[in-house]
């Protein structure tokens, strides 16, 4: 796989699936990454496209507004019917550009855990744009299906994430065999600003110890000594249920190829098994406690 440049659209499946990406320098100031981790990481948004419509997963930070709008305009036209799903509605990384995209593109619907989507993302300007309230919101429960475009037969499944910190959605696209995992499998970072952001083989930075530390020093600070066997069951169910060729996280490198995908699930399962209350003692985790 070639090294893609920052701010450049990547076509993951010809005419069907696109990656909008911005590379950030890690300096301890992003909540999604360990505060002591340096290097670079991609922040990812995805466009699932058919001739009669498109579906956008996540919208990026407001900081990347121009880049995201520019990349999106290279994938769809302004009149393409568009649906938007911010996978973590409470986080700035996923909702930052819902408003500006909605104003510029032909947004037809939102997918959210809560009704009245604009109430959750319309906060970046001096005034609200009340016209956005006319755009319907589809409320995601534990599981919902959605067709991309009109009568295309391309159906994606949106589900509540089996392991999460806050309200989070995962998406499975049967056509591309891609699992979009929002804030899970996000540990693929790099020492360099230009790198291969789409992995097809394992690399050093994805060692289990690194993954463990990454999880404990970010949103999964609470896992050690928790009842993780319950979580393992739910995660394994997803791995067994879906035919997954690509793991597409909301940030970090993508994992392509069935072997590499399986490796990530196996590693996660082993880590969670190690963390389970039957193997690890729970203890109070204070703020800034790094492991």
């Amino acid at each position, binding site marked *: 796989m070639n090294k893609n440049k920052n701010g450049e659209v990547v076509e993951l499946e010809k005419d069907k699936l696109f990656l909008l990406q911005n590379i950030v320098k890690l300096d301890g100031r*992003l*909540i999604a990454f360990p505060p002591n981790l340096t290097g670079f990481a991609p922040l990812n948004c995805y466009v699932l496209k058919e001739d009669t419509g498109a579906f956008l997963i996540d919208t990026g*930070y407001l900081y990347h507004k121009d880049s995201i709008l520019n990349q999106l305009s290279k994938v769809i036209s302004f009149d393409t019917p568009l649906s938007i799903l911010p996978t973590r509605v409470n986080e*700035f990384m996923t*909702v930052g550009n819902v408003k500006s995209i909605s104003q510029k593109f032909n947004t037809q619907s939102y997918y959210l855990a809560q009704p009245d989507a604009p109430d959750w993302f319309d906060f970046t*300007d001096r005034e609200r744009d009340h016209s956005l309230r006319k755009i319907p919101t589809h409320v995601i429960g534990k599981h919902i299906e959605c067709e991309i475009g009109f009568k295309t037969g391309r159906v994606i499944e949106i589900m509540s994430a089996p392991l*999460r910190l806050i309200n989070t959605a995962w998406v499975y696209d049967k056509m591309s065999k891609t699992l979009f995992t929002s804030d899970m499998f996000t540990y693929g970072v790099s020492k360099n600003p230009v790198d291969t952001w789409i992995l097809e083989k394992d690399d050093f930075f994805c060692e289990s110890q690194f993954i463990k530390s990454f999880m404990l020093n970010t949103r999964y600070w609470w896992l050690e000594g928790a*009842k993780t066997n319950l979580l393992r069951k739910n995660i394994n169910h997803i791995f067994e249920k879906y035919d997954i060729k690509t793991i597409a996280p909301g940030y970090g490198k993508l994992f392509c190829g069935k072997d590499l995908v399986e490796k990530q699930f196996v590693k996660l399962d082993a880590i969670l098994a190690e963390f389970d209350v039957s193997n690890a003692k729970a203890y*109070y985790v204070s*703020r800034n406690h790094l492991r």
Partner: protein
Amino acid sequence: MHQNRLPREILKNIFWLGDCLVQHYQGKTYHSYNSSYLVVGKDKALLVETGHPKDFNILHEQMIKILDKKQVPLKYIFTTHQETPHAGGIARFLNLYPDVKVLGDVSDYHMAFPMFTDNFVSMEVGEKIDLGRIEFFAAEPVVRDIRTSLWGFIHPQRILFPGDGFAYSHYHWDGHCGKLAEEAESLNLFEVTSVFAELALFWTNFVDMNIYSERLIKLIKELNVQCIAPTHGLPIMNVEETIPKVIEGLHGPYEKIAS
């Protein structure tokens, strides 16, 4: 339609602001809050949390009326963490008050609100600012979600602002909106705390909460907390009487799974 019963002065110069958020769960309709609190010192005012994005205009009107009357300027905003119901209003406030400083763990804000990077001031546990006869401290966030959370504490009133801690909904149908926890007599604190934790604090389903409640009780003793002003729950004015019920509810999801 519900009638908003806020703002409310819960202690002298400490105002509870915001409006209810309606939520449905298993056939029941619950109300919860995404509250803000206005702390008015002799010289400066500080707003704890910026409220739910939907509430900005209401919250702002409530705040202006109080500050106009008190003739004290808004100087600071403190957010407990980087979720939109807590910090989503930052840009809208800074558009109107460009000199206001946003305090707390300010991670992510340079990306979320890049036009206001100079307004963000980092605080750590134990650091304080003086509002004039009231001091505001950053405190340890015992019950939290995002790793960058911080709690607030003010002296001499000894009020704790715990963000997502002490989170629970209330019964709109029984007139609890705008009431203090102790005034909402029919509120089953165990039930509403347990439901809130199960749904919004996913990790509490899997972690033995004894560890966290022990630390919570220790913190309350260390700081000699007299009142608690949560973002999602009703303010707690009788710590000794009410806290055990809330803590019992916090244990609810884990015990439900364990059983």
